[in-house]
């Protein structure tokens, strides 16, 4: 064994170890850095001991040390062994524990770790858009901001409420209450304007946040509001197409699993579903936005001009029966539902039923032509405007014609001739033709709450009922049903159910056309042509001249029908429905248009009140198809002062035959029974007591004054009973007693 007296710490290290250590030490020294590094702490310790004098520098001390080293060697080896064993045990424990965690309890700990880091990203698809036939957006969902709060983070709810209430325009106390609630999430105001959102951000109120929520926007405001309907604040369709197609329009929700990093950022590790797969499907309508606008404008003008209670206008594509425009007045703005009433939101085109009056005569004449009962040239006796039938009198009130052809009778809208044709047809045949024209069932259009009309079984029709129905009283239809019936003639005798949805969006930008609906031939082409010629006569020479469009042949039919007074359950003498329906150009029909005005106050006649709007709407539709259409020089646009001067005709003035006037006595028992009528219409014959039932006190006073009689009123409201009865001989100076009841008693 080598000896040394060198007190170099390096050599001390050598002395302390055995031969193998020396070898290792040398080896490590020759290899350089690693050995040196390991020895460095020993060296430092020895140097420190030398400095402290704990290591002797004498020969004797060196000897003692060597001797002790020899004695301690087994102990050192033992310690080394213990240390190695201890380290091995620790290593084994670590490996075992690691194996336990990684292999045996893997799923449990993996789940716990994922639960801690997992972040579920909620993706909400937007409601699909609704576009017109040219792709113009009518309804669309956009993100807007909603103000929310975490009340736990709000330090001073009252102070925050004081600052936020003026910005949000909400009640301060309610806001303070929300901010004081124990919940962790409250809505302060949903879907605020960008201006409010900016102000809220600027306020930087602690605990108050903004989140995005989709909001439905209707770009045209009131445009096609009744068709489109609306959705509620949670995006669920509540009316119109929004309701009918809610399932298709509504976007899907998806939950994507992601991870959250230390800063809370979402990391999508499993990919993301395509957004368009989540978005609701779009709807493409057959509607033309421009024609819809013009239709709405024309209808609104007519309603305003005639001071009508409500109005409906429908434009159908004559060849496909697609709805090109559908307007209803009064209307509403779906962007601001709070201002609208239930009545304004009602789509009268499909939800309202009315007695069509003379426009229905086309069905009677069509049936007569098809059944061989009559030809257009067959002459009928119009009985000089007054015909006694079934114990009642049917009148052509304002004209007294003798013999007329069927075509001429349609042109002047004779109730008597229509009744005669209906009677010749008989109950069953007329009823069958009413069915064929689709007037006894809903059209099936893709709109909710469609009515299906009212018509009793033909077995219960009395003779007078048959006569009434022949000229459009005692039967109730929706405007859309009537438009469909008119379109049968425009389409050359083929009936197609009207529809509004042209295509649905399968995926973004990929549209699937709606399947073609079944069509049914109702009339022979020659019958349709004959009817078209007759309807052209109505516009060119008859009661519908206001509907004429220069340069175009227009086919049409006027309608004026009395309404039922809900109080008296009799036909009102005050309230009428004026309508005009037709199509054009007559030689190659492109559009069928129907205009219905409910309770017009200016003129009750369809040819005066509704025909100008018809002309405007048909002109607009033809323009939209590229035709150059001119306004007639002689017919001022309705709604203008000039038109009011030239066209405003007081009620009761001569004009086309008001169908219900023919009902003066012909008011059917059947119609009464069907419509719950018990009272006959008042007589207007001079020398007899007029009918007062249904009139208000003011009108009774007027009539009494005219007759020189003294009224006695019992009760208030409208007359429900009178003494003496109407039709009895009038005695000047006599007392007339009327019992009255409130309208909604």
């Amino acid at each position, binding site marked *: 064994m080598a000896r040394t007296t060198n007190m170099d710490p390096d050599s001390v290290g050598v002395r302390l170890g055995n031969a193998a250590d020396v070898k290792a030490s040398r080896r490590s020294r020759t290899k350089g850095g690693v050995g040196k590094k390991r020895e460095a702490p020993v060296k430092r310790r020895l140097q420190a001991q030398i400095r402290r004098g704990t290591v002797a520098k004498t020969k004797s001390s060196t000897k003692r040390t060597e001797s002790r080293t020899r004695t301690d060697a087994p102990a050192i080896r033992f310690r080394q062994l213990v240390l190695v064993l201890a380290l091995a045990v620790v290593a084994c424990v670590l490996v075992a524990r690691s194996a336990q965690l990684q292999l045996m309890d893997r799923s449990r700990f993996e789940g716990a770790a994922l639960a801690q880091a997992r972040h579920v990203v909620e993706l909400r698809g*937007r409601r699909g858009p609704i576009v017109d036939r040219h792709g*113009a*957006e*009518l309804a*669309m*969902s*956009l*993100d807007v901001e909603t103000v929310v709060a975490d009340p736990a983070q709000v330090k001073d709810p009252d102070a925050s409420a004081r600052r936020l209430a003026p910005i949000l325009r909400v009640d301060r106390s309610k806001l303070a209450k929300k901010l004081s609630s124990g919940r962790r999430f409250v809505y302060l105001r949903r879907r605020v304007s960008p201006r409010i959102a900016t102000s809220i951000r600027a306020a930087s109120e602690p605990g108050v946040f903004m989140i995005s929520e989709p909001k439905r*926007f209707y*770009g*045209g*405001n009131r*445009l096609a509001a009744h068709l489109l309907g609306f959705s509620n604040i949670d995006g669920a369709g509540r009316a119109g197409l929004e309701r009918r197609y809610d399932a298709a329009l509504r976007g899907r929700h998806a939950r994507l699993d*992601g*991870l959250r*990093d230390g800063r809370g*950022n*979402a*990391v*999508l*590790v499993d*990919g*993301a579903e395509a*957004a368009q797969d989540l978005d609701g499907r779009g709807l493409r309508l057959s509607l033309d*936005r*421009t024609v819809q*606008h*013009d239709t709405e*404008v024309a209808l609104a003008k007519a309603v305003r001009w005639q001071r009508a209670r409500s109005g409906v206008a429908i434009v159908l594509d004559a060849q496909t029966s697609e709805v090109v425009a559908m307007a209803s007045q009064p209307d509403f703005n779906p962007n601001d539902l709070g201002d609208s009433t239930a009545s304004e939101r009602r789509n009268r085109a499909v939800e309202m039923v009315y007695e069509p009056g003379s426009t229905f005569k086309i069905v009677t004449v069509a049936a007569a032509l098809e059944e061989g009962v009559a030809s257009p040239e067959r002459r009928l006796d119009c009985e000089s405007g007054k015909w006694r039938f079934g114990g009642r009198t049917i009148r052509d009130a304002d004209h007294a014609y003798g013999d007329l052809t069927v075509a001429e009778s349609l042109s002047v809208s004779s109730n008597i001739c229509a009744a005669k044709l209906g009677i010749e047809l008989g109950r069953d045949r007329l009823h069958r033709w009413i069915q064929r024209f689709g007037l006894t069932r809903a059209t099936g259009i893709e709109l909710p709450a469609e009515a299906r009309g009212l018509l009793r079984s033909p077995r219960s029709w009395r003779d007078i009922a048959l006569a009434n129905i022949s000229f459009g009283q005692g039967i109730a239809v929706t405007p859309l049903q009537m438009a469909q019936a008119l379109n049968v003639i425009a389409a050359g005798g083929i009936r197609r159910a009207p529809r509004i949805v042209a295509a649905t969006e399968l995926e973004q930008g990929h549209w699937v056309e709606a399947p073609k609906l079944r069509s049914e031939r109702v009339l022979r082409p020659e019958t349709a042509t004959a009817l078209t010629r007759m309807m052209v006569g109505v516009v060119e020479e008859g009661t519908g001249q206001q509907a004429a469009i*220069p*340069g175009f042949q227009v086919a049409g039919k006027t309608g004026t029908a009395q309404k039922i007074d809900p109080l008296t359950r009799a036909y009102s003498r005050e309230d009428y429905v004026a309508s005009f329906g037709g199509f054009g150009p007559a030689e190659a029909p492109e559009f069928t248009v129907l205009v219905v005005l409910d309770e017009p106050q200016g003129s009750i006649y369809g040819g005066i009140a509704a025909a100008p709007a018809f002309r405007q709407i048909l002109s607009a539709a033809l*323009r939209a198809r590229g035709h*150059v*259409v*001119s*306004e*007639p*020089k002689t017919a001022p646009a309705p709604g203008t002062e000039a038109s009011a001067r030239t066209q405003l005709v007081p009620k009761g003035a001569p004009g086309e035959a008001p169908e219900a006037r023919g009902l003066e006595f012909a008011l059917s028992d059947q119609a009464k029974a069907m419509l719950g009528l018990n009272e006959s219409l008042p007589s207007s014959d001079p020398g007899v007591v007029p009918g007062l039932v249904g009139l208000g006190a003011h009108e009774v006073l007027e009539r009494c004054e005219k007759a020189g009689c003294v009224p006695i009123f019992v009760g208030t409201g409208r007359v429900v009973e009178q003494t003496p009865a109407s039709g009895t001989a009038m005695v000047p100076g006599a007392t007339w007693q009327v019992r009255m009841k409130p309208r909604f008693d």
Partner: protein
Amino acid sequence: MRQDPLIWALAIAAPLVAVGLFHAWTHVQTLRLGYELSDAVEKREVLEEQNRALRMERSTLRAPERLERLGREMKLAPPGSEAH
């Protein structure tokens, strides 16, 4: 011939280290792509929202009511209304 144990150790450790490094690399890549995906989804949302807003604005600007009002202000007339 006896081989150096260090070589054996290296031969065993190197593949293990390589596998470990690869695993770590894939994990880092997954996270990086996850971040990118999150950003892309967010950007797509923003762009789609902008697209919708612009479509709505276009629809509003081309609304017949507005065009009619502008036409009236410019004293224009419907096509053909001057004829006859």
